[in-house]
């Protein structure tokens, strides 16, 4: 995970606000875990796995179900539905992060050409927008672990491992969010000021 500050002005603040806002809309506490599937349902995004797509048990299905090579992808279907297809073989925390990242692309309104069909060359030309990937990475992390929730957890003296378990996040994600939000510094400042 990269820490990068080259976002559009106000993007990070908006990302934190959105993370809290969705929790409130879904009737959750501001510092509660937000399951990616719940957010997807709310946003009317279908979250699928390969077995939902292949009607017969084929070797292709078996290959995808047993592969670690891919994580998740998004597309708009012919009927205009927003789909996320993800790899169930990954750990629960990794799946959560994968789905949140893809949801983030939709929330950011990253453009999807409509009514498109595919050939292998166009899918795998590796043409992707770096700025959009960075935005989805940041927002996905915010959705999973908002700064407010991190500070709450650190104040409760939860370990990074506890935080990871509570929010169904990976240890890497917790570390990334703590480092990139300055949450730990804020806790330390707060502790210092109490003794002044």
């Amino acid at each position, binding site marked *: 995970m990269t820490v990068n500050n080259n976002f559009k002005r106000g993007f990070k603040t908006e990302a934190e606000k959105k993370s809290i806002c969705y929790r409130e809309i879904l009737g959750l506490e501001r510092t509660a875990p937000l399951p990616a599937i719940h957010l997807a349902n709310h946003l009317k995004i*279908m979250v*699928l796995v*390969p077995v939902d*797509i*292949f009607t017969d048990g084929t070797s*292709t299905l078996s*290959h*995808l179900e047993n*592969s*670690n*090579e*891919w*994580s*998740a*992808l*998004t*597309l*708009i*279907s*012919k*009927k205009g*539905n927003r*789909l996320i*297809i993800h790899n169930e073989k990954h750990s629960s925390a990794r799946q959560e992060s*994968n789905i949140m*990242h*893809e949801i983030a*692309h939709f929330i950011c309104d*990253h*453009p*999807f*050409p*409509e*009514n*498109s*069909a*595919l*050939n*292998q*060359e*166009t*899918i*795998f*030309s*590796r*043409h*992707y927008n770096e700025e959009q*990937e960075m935005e*989805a990475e940041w927002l996905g992390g915010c959705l999973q672990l908002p700064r407010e929730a991190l500070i709450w957890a650190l104040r409760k003296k939860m370990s990074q491992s506890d935080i990871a378990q509570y929010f169904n996040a990976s240890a890497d994600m917790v570390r990334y969010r703590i480092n990139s939000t300055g949450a730990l510094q804020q806790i330390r400042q707060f502790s210092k000021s109490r003794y002044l």
Partner: protein
Amino acid sequence: MLKSKRGEKGLRAIAQEIGGVSASTLSRIEQGKVPDVDTFIKICSWLGVSTEEFSSEESNISNKISSKDLILSQLRADRTLSQKTIEALAEMINLAYNKY
């Protein structure tokens, strides 16, 4: 369009700017040769134009891309995809596209 944007800059410098394209490929394109899909997309991105700009019945590239719009499928892969996985994902994406 390629020639006018590069101006005085040499092909090597432009190839480096675009990334993943050789100077000799750019030279062939400027002479009228049709690039492969991957190169075409990279050049459009560098030019800051949509691939649709080159939509025409005469263009082989546009028959592959513009006759059906590009879907932006955002894959987060941990490592380089094997050919078998690429084919499997392509099949899955096409099925999902039509089914849902």
